[in-house]
């Protein structure tokens, strides 16, 4: 499968690193890519359920393009949100719907988290897809 260029860069970046600790550090670096969802806009419908940490993610379509805002108190979760932002922000809704969530697996990002973590990530990805489907 070929990914959008932004995603391919992330995958390449991660695949260079063997050490799990370092991969987590890199993951946390991506947290700065998040467009912050202000606390005032946190609500039940944008809350990521099943996470130990507090996490929210909100999708809008702005001028026909997908816009992601997010927030999390744990930096690793925010890092995941950052990667999702890079992968999705500014794409056309149809492009996102064509995207498979598996790229983070491909990149070994989820690998560097514990398996059950994948649920939180999957939840976020599903929330994105659902929001877009509702919006269009």
């Amino acid at each position, binding site marked *: 499968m070929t990914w959008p260029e932004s995603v391919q860069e992330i995958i390449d970046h991660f695949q260079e690193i063997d050490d799990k600790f370092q991969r987590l550090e890199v993951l946390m670096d991506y947290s700065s890519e998040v467009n912050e969802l202000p606390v005032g806009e946190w609500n039940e419908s944008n809350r990521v359920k099943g996470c130990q940490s507090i996490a929210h993610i909100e999708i809008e379509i702005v001028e026909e393009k997908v816009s992601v805002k997010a927030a999390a108190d744990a930096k690793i979760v925010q890092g995941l949100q950052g990667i999702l932002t890079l992968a999705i922000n500014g794409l056309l809704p149809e492009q996102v719907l064509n995207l498979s969530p598996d790229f983070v697996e491909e990149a070994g990002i989820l690998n560097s*988290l*514990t*398996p059950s973590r994948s649920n939180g990530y999957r939840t976020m990805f599903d929330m994105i897809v659902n929001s877009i489907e509702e919006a269009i």
Partner: protein
Amino acid sequence: MKDQFPIFERKINGKELVYLDNAATTQKPNQVIEAMNDYYRLSNANVHRAVHTLAGEATEGYEECRKLLKKRFNAGRAIITSGTTEAINLVAHSWGHSNLNAGDVVVLTEMEHHSDIVPWQMLAERKSIELRYVPVSDGKLDMNAFEVALEGAKLVCVVHTSNVLGIRNPIEKIISFSKNRGAKILLDAAQAVPHELIDFKETGADFMAFSAHKMCGPTGIGALLVSEEAFKEMQPFMGGGDMIDTVTLSGSTFQADEHKFEAGTPRIAEGVGWSAALEWISKIDLLNHHQRLLSIARDVKVSLEERGMTVYSPLGPGDAAVISFTHPSIHPEDFARLLDAQGVAVRTGHHCAQPLMERLGVNGTIRASFYLYNDHNDSEKFLFAIDRVMEAML
């Protein structure tokens, strides 16, 4: 197939084991034993809400069981319990308690296992519910009586396949009649899932209960499948860790999914073992084995009758290969002990179905129940052992 089951390497009283107590519990293939072994050796940890590697693996392993159950049985909801018995008690407490009221009717049958009678008797006493038992005549459910009993029923609880007689009840008919009258249906499928692949959604039932240990899985675990509609009507049963969303001193909120009904540390190793059993059994052609075993059982039935035994199992087309019989003068317990001395394991007694025993007019029977690994060799040894008992006793 026996070589996949380590227990058959064991000698019983110097003899090869002829295991014909499968309706009580089945033996376990290597994969199942190894999976639990590996879990404890490599991945043991507590599940959920944890972030370390072992805990993640344990969680995935346990949740895999739920996924496999949903897939195999085409079910929207699979609650993991400690077995059939807990599953039925769960329905009585979490659905029955809040959806049944004084005067409401629950229909049972005389063929039920105690696990599908006693929970309802206990609930009936607490909530003044009326219990109606569909009688058994000629070894079958009386379907006319069933239709009459349905009048005003809120819930119908019926054993899919009888553990005493092997009879597969006409559950398609039972379910469609029940649904027409607006009653919910619980299937006790403890003896059914080992022998046939059931599509839960297609049956139209609301609840289906069964145990892992009767289908090559470990002890201590079972499941309750629930329809989406019935699931919405269920209140929590046991309280504790894992089933809550938030707990405060003034009250608690609960999880929305199956975890709501799984309080406390779950059966983790058991879930891993059952997953292995579900994987293993998914590669078996159950229908083929069913026909093979039924044909063996029918031959055995004829031979037993030739020897003067009364055989209670009809062994009709869909029935499981379970033969309940008695001898006119030899006590079942003596019979079973003398068989055991020859390596043959059968069960005797009321088989947790005293009302059915009453209906059959016996205190107990000898029951020989066959499963995947049994073959003609076993049935021959069984009959040979029977002959020796009769020689000694008569």
